[in-house]
Structure formats: C-alpha cells, structure tokens
C-alpha cells in the first residue's frame, strides 16, 4: 500500500489543517451559541425577530385577507398561507440586522478586540455571528410554520416542501447577516446599524413579500420584479402554496448566492478595515 501513503511533511501538514479546522469550528460554534443566547436574553434584539413580524402577520392577514378575491391573485388556500413566506423573510432580515447591531455592540464594548487578540481565525469570529443569525432564521421559520399550522394554513409541498422552505430561510438569514456584519465591522457603531432598520422595511415592501407583484402599484411593481428578495420569497413561498418547483428554487438559490457573495466580499473588506483601524 505504499503508493497510497503520503510524505511525512504532508501528513503533518494535513493533521495540522484538520486540527486548525476543528479549532475554528469550535470557535464558530461557541460564538454562534453566544449570539443566540444574547438575542434571547435581550428583548430589544428578540422583538424585531419574533414580536413585530408576528403582529404584522396577524394584522395584515386580517386586514388585507380579502385580497385573495382580487382578480389576478394567485390561487392560494388562504391569505395566511400566502403571507407566511413574507413573515419569515421579514423575520430573517431583522435577525440579520439584529446580528449586525449585536456585533457592533461587541466592537463598541471591546469584546471583538479581545477576540482579535486571541489565537483564532478572524473569519471564524464573523462566521460565528453568522451561524447565530442562521440559527435565528431557522427558529423564525419554525415559529411561523407553527403559527401557520395552528391557524389552519396548509403546506402544499408537505414535509419536503416545508424542509426546503426552512433551509432557504436559514441560508438567507446567514447571507443577510453577512451584510449586517459587514456594516457593523465597517462602522463599529450600533446606532448606525440600527438606523438601517427602515431600509429593511423598504426592501421588504419593494418585493413580493406581502403581495403578488402583478397586483402591486407602480413603481413598487417594477422594482419588486427585479428585487432579488422577491426571488427568494417566491422560492420560500412556492413549497407552501403549491408545492416544490425546481425553477423557483433555482432562482431563489441564485439570488441567495448573489447576496452571499456580496455579504462575504463586504465583510472581508470591512474586517481588513477593522483590523487596520482597531
């Protein structure tokens, strides 16, 4: 079996790499858990993720529920079923924003400086925060599925459809969290990241999160047609309202990939900036 053995230096190098990876994974896990605990302990971080989207879901479903009678409204079992994806999107975007605020608070309080001084990968620090945001996205999707099921919404795609939607929401939360983290690292100011809260609402309103694009009013309609978040919403919604659709899923994944690339790119630049300015 000599042909399969590696030179000693490579074996040592490979083992070192594996150890390094394991150490980083431990850091990501620890920071991710810290980020989740932080969110559950602070009502000002938890409220935007669960309370506000739930209140809005209830009010919009009750207030605009008759919209399903409008000509051109896609066939759905109920307006609640239609709105579940929008509520999940709202929740995950606010989770990304909250993650950014928490990271900025860590920077303001000097916690991030201590992490930077520790013998751990700098990227693991950001990934830890994103892992926490992804977990909150997962929690949000489960929360809204539970609400939907309790109040009579059907999941047309069944368990596989629900799992697909949950996966898309979780990954999108991490992707959006990347943008929040980038802004936090760049500015180091919690109030600046908090100031982006209205922007989250703008992005949501200018997407198909709350209403079918075809029934929206110009210019919101045209903007929503090209808004990448509309593709993600449709990818999450389709398994709920009519079943898994490969095209919608592929478009959603493409949009998520775009946001991941932007988020990672911005985060990497911001991290370099943060390390330079301290």
């Amino acid at each position, binding site marked *: 079996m000599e042909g399969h053995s590696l030179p000693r230096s490579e074996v040592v190098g490979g083992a070192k790499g594996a150890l390094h990876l394991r150490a980083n994974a431990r850091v990501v896990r620890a920071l991710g858990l810290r980020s989740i605990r932080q969110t559950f302990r602070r009502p*000002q971080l938890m409220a935007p993720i669960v309370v506000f989207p739930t209140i809005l879901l209830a009010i919009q479903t009750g*207030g605009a529920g*008759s*919209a399903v009678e*409008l000509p051109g409204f896609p066939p759905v079992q109920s*307006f609640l079923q239609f709105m579940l994806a929008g509520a999940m999107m709202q929740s995950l975007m606010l989770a990304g924003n909250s993650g950014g605020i928490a990271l900025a608070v860590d920077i303001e309080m000097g916690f991030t400086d201590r992490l930077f001084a520790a013998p751990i990968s700098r990227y693991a620090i950001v990934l830890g925060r994103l892992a926490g945001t992804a977990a909150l996205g997962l929690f949000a999707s489960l929360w809204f599925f539970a609400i939907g099921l309790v109040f009579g919404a059907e999941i047309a795609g069944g368990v596989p459809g629900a799992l697909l939607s949950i996966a898309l929401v979780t990954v999108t939360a991490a992707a959006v969290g990347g943008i929040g983290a980038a802004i936090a690292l760049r500015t180091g100011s919690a109030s600046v990241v908090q100031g982006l809260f209205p922007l989250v609402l703008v992005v*949501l*309103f200018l997407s198909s999160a709350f209403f079918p694009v075809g029934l929206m009013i110009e210019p919101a309609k045209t903007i929503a047609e090209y808004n990448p978040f509309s593709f993600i919403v449709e990818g999450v919604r389709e398994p709920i309202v009519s079943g898994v659709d490969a095209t919608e899923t592929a478009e959603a994944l493409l949009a998520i990939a775009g946001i991941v690339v932007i988020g990672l790119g911005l985060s990497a630049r911001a991290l370099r900036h943060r390390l330079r300015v301290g």
Partner: protein
Amino acid sequence: MDATANLPAWRVNLATIGALMSRAKNELLRVPGAAIPGVLAPTIFFLGLNGVFGALTQLKGFETGAYESFIVPVSMLQGAGFTGAAAGVNMARDIEQGWLDRLLVSPAPRWVLLAGTVLAASARALIPGAFVFAIALLLGAGWPGVDGLLVTFFMVAAMAAVAACWGSMLALRFKSQSAAPLMQAGMMALILTTTAYAPLALLQGWLEEVARVNPVTQVVEAARQGFVGGVSWAETWPGLLALLGLLLVFGALALREMRRTGA
C-alpha cells in the same frame, strides 16, 4: 428670594411644563438626526402599504378609489404612536442616567412632570404627521379640507399623548430602555388592529371583532373622514370620546407609576 415663591401654584406648574417641553424641543434642535427614525418609519409604512395594498380599493366596499387617501391618516397616527413611544424611551434613558431622580426631588407635582413629557410628544408628533401628509399630497391623496385637516392633526396630537402615557408607564415600570420594543409594539398593535388596512366589512374574522371594540378604530375613522368624504360631527365625536377615554386610562396608569417611582 425665589422668584416663583409668590406666584400661584398653577403658574409655577405651567412654567414647569413649559420648561420640560422646551427641553424636549432642545433635544430635537440639537440632535435633529434623532427625529429621523420617527419621521422615516411612518413614511416608509405609508409608501410601502400604498404600493403593496393599493389594489385593495378594487374590492367592493371601499369608500374611496385612492388607497393613498385611505391609508394616509393611519400612517400619520402611526407617526404619533412612534413619537409617543420615543417619549417613553427618552424617559427610560432619563431614569437610567439619573435625571428623573433629580426631577422627582423637585417640588413639582408628579402630574406636572408627566404632563411635560406628554405634551412635548403631542407637539412633536405634528412633524412626522406633516411630513407624511405632504408626501401623500404629492402622491395624489385627496385634500381633506381645512376642517378635515384640523380634525386629523388634532387626532394625531392626541394619539401621541396616549402613546406617550403608555411609553412613560412602561419606562417607569421597567426603568430601562430595553422596554422600547414593548412601547412600540403596543402602539403598533393598538393602531393597526382597527380599520387601518380596509373598511370594517372587509376585515377578516378576528380582526373585524377586535376592530369593532378597539376604541382607536373611532380615532382612525375620525381622522380619515376628510380624506374619503366630508367631515361631520357624527364621525368626529366618537373619535374624541375614544381619545378622552384612552387618555384617562393610560394617563392614570402612567401617573400611578410616576407616584410609585421614588416613593
């Protein structure tokens, strides 16, 4: 000798309320950026709801064909809700920084301290109200007439007072800015569980029931009347009565917390 020593109590109280309102005004002038979220949030909601739910006017039962006219008073009231909640957050900050303690040891009655905060919020709510109204006019919302406009702005100012009482009550109870989401969520729920999105007949199930008993529905309808038709006393007095009731209830609760604080 103290210049206020010979003044009647009501004049001293009035001067204290004026000073507290002036402090709130100074905050606004010195940190104008602090007012932006309060203006931006209702504006975004107005533009967003109009763009998203505008087609609802095609449903039978809508009093108007222009959703911007239908929704603008709601957004103005939302602005009042945000402003009132912000007054609560500011009070929580004052508690955290020890400023309220200093006010409490002054000879000013507790209700005067509360009135200063509440009236300042009422005045401040006119800023987001005016901004949203201007945007709505630009987008083609109907002119409500001078009487309609006066009724709407009165409702906005009074709703901000209600929200400020609610925010102050929570600030005094929790003594922390962490209670901010509760202040905002409470007002958001109170204002939106009404005929905010659609007329009563078009609301679904539970919301229709809640909107029927929610007193803010009367406030929304009174504020809206000039935008969707004519102004009448029959549509105005239920709103005034509802506001009076809300002010009495939330004012009493806030005052109770104020009296308990530092007692």
